[in-house]
């Protein structure tokens, strides 16, 4: 299937506004009331192949909120064959909850069918670029829709890398028609960890391909930043978000908070901060407007 015939990023990624990641800690908040959240992002793997409460909750919430599926195990950069069973379950789930779009990460997660359950850094070479393009094509053809790939945080890079990560992501998007889930915190973390410039990273990305933003907190460690998804969004990440809005425009934005998860109201306060940045940065573009990539 040519990517022109797929359900494209532009078709799927309308601006949904400000969402939060759906976590078990907040199931009751969402089931017992209807908190003022524009949309929900569900971690794909928590809902695949399970008949327990999580799937039931997601099914019910899908009646009330737009749902986006965000995965961590596609291993688009891996060398083991793509897991067709995983893709089949993903497709079924996406149909069941009417997922607006599906995203995963620009990474590999293991070797020889062993899954380390981590977002491991890609070697950035012409060969790996070609490899990933092929696998994105396979994935999109299987799912019948364009997917979004997120830039992960990274702590290591390879001595033989020949392409910058942002350029690598750009070429995948332009070649395959896939979208980019731009994690602003991850850009900040990775560029600090590798001594690179975050603005140059943002400037390199093709605006039309960017379908969603992530915001999150990180932690300072001895000699590096850790993408811990803990605590409120740090000021340098807000600064980079402002820059991103000005450069690329508004997109559906999601706050991730996965460690020491607070009351839902705290997440909503963070979302309110993000919302407050919009009028000044993107004059005339409403949060719930029709703007999309």
């Amino acid at each position, binding site marked *: 299937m040519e990517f022109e015939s797929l359900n494209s990023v532009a078709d799927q990624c309308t601006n949904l506004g400000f969402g939060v990641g759906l976590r078990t800690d907040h199931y009751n908040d969402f089931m017992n009331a209807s908190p003022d959240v524009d949309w929900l992002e569900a971690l794909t*793997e*928590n809902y695949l*192949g399970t008949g327990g409460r999580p799937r039931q909750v997601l099914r019910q919430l899908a009646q009330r909120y737009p749902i986006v599926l965000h995965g961590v195990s596609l291993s688009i950069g891996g060398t083991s064959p793509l897991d067709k069973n995983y893709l089949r379950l993903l497709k079924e789930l996406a149909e069941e909850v009417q997922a607006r779009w599906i995203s995963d990460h620009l990474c590999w997660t293991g070797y020889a069918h062993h899954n*380390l*359950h*981590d977002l*491991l850094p890609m070697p950035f070479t012409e060969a790996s670029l070609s490899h990933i393009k092929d696998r994105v094509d396979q994935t999109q053809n299987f799912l019948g829709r364009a997917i979004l790939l997120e830039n992960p945080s990274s*702590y*290591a890079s390879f001595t033989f890398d020949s392409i910058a990560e942002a350029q690598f992501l750009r070429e995948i998007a332009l070649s395959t028609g896939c979208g980019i889930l731009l994690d602003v915190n991850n850009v900040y973390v990775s560029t600090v960890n590798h001594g690179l410039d975050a603005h140059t990273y943002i400037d390199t990305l093709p605006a039309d391909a960017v379908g969603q933003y992530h915001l999150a907190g990180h932690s300072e460690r001895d000699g590096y930043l850790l993408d811990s998804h803990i605590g409120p969004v740090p000021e340098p990440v807000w600064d980079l978000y402002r820059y991103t809005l000005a450069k690329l425009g508004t997109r559906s934005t999601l706050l991730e908070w996965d460690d020491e998860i607070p009351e839902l109201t705290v997440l909503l306060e963070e979302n309110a901060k993000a919302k407050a940045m919009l009028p000044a940065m993107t004059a005339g573009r409403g949060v719930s407007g029709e703007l999309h990539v």
Partner: protein
Amino acid sequence: MKFEDAQKWMHAAIVAQEAPDEVHQYLKSTDGACAHRRLGVYRDMYRVRMSESLQMDYGLLLQVVGEEEFDRLSERYLEVYPSTSYTLNDLGRHFASYLGSQKDLPPYLEAIARFEFALVRSFDATDPRPADWTELSTLPLEDLCERTLRPLPSFIGEKFSYRLDNLYEAYLQDKLEPGTLPDEGECAVLFFRENFRVYHMPVDDLSWELFQGLQHKRNFGEALDPVLPKAKDPTAQQNLLGTFQQWVGRSLLAHPEIG
């Protein structure tokens, strides 16, 4: 260098007991952190993630053996059974059998792990439509006996040589004293899910035999026939049938097929 070779190397370097020496050939160093330190981030995260994942499913086992021993057991286990699934929910699938196969470990560790994994299995099971007692109760007995009434996938039975139900209750209520070990004693336990919560209940020998019969025999009649005569008086027989009725009433059996 081929990117595939770099991935193979990095994978091995993360899971290895000791970090390899040749890190500089593969990973860049910067002023902020050397290549070894950078690899160490991934090595540390791998161990923490795997251990935390197992700890979530095996909370009682963790309390019984302590964190240090639990981490040691996790690491040994993962060397034999690394994750091959897209989900960490499956990580502990072989933990009980692995612990049971280790001659240097006390046998109650296998039992505790099997008990806790039954809870996980019940929580995650995908169930078909359950049997409806209002439908079944209208059937003449001989028709009912022809029906195949399998326990739902979330309705699980396990037999133990330790009284784990008591131990688990103490753990849930945060009343488990350090160093507490399970009492020896045969114990059959049924695990089931109701309103998305998982419960466990010890059952007597007759109920256990009936449960096994429902799982393996052709139909309800064949499951019941060998068990009912063992009930020593009419009250015991009524109790057994009452147990069966409870299982159906609580939607723990699958919608019947004609056996």
